[in-house]
């Protein structure tokens, strides 16, 4: 059932290793995370604005890493990996998003709070 004759090092998934891409991914994601840390520590915008910007930075970092180090592309060797991930992505959004939505409504209807505290009720980690 295996390809006995072939050298496993010739397998396309071995051959797609790329040092320059890994370095690029490292530099860019470190940069993005540093900016995120700076935003969070300096409180330069409103809390909601910071959260949105951090979410955006995280999204960019994940896309960069997904492309450069996880090799999520449509080449022949990787296409099924990519398809599987694309299939999962909406389910992550559904799980977190719909849960956040239903509990947001639930908290509004069942946890009546003083006005000062209620601003926190709107925060959810996956608000993007």
């Amino acid at each position, binding site marked *: 059932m*295996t390809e006995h004759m072939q050298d496993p090092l010739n397998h396309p998934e071995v051959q797609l290793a790329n040092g320059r891409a890994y370095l690029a991914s490292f530099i860019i994601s470190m940069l993005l995370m540093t900016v995120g840390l700076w935003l969070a520590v300096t409180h330069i915008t409103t809390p909601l604005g910071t959260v949105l910007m*951090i979410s955006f930075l995280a999204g960019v970092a*994940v896309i960069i890493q997904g492309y450069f180090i996880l090799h999520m592309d449509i080449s022949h060797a990787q296409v099924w*990996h990519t398809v599987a991930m694309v299939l999962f992505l909406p389910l992550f959004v559904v799980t977190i998003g719909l*849960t956040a939505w239903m509990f947001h409504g639930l908290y509004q209807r069942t946890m009546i709070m003083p006005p000062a505290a209620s601003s926190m009720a709107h925060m*959810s980690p996956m608000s993007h």
Partner: protein
Amino acid sequence: MSASAAQKVDPAHATLWARHYAGHDMIGTRTFGFWLYMLTDAMVYAALFATLGVLSHVVNLAGGPSSSAFINPVYAYGQTITLFLSVLIYGYSMVALKNGNRGGVIGGMFVAMLLGVVYLVISGIDIGNMFAHGIFPQVSGFLSIFFTIIIYHALHIIVGVVWMLVMMIQVAREGFSANVVYRLINLRLFWHFQAVIWVFVFAFVYLQGIVA
């Protein structure tokens, strides 16, 4: 009675049996299955983040400290640097694999493993500090999920470190057999995936915790 598409194929000239069938691509099949497993692990994280979302309301603090009161971003940032560096070095180890360089693979993996250990030490100090200040998972619903996420991520790093240890021995013993190569690729998927997950943990547990 007739299969609709059937008539387009000429039965007189159709190939019926795949003689000398070479078999499927073993390495590709293995890595695909492992990738599916990694995605289920991502689903576990999705469920944990959904839990974090639900338990981030002010009532979930139950009078305990909010995350902005105790998160020290220096440690988390240190973890970010070590993990991303480790992933980078493991990437270079894979470049060495591409070139058939056994010493390069083992050496790169050794450095990556050491960085994983450094990550764990930083994480341990960070968690130890929190415990020393009376910040335990048992204090409130929010702290329960906070610690669950960071400890679950640290468990992955432990698994990765052990796995690298095993793979270094296997590379040294067996060289680059098909079995070793697919495991190295799986470990690459595993280790690089930890960096992706860490982006979420860093951004949505630590950084957002500071903002809140």
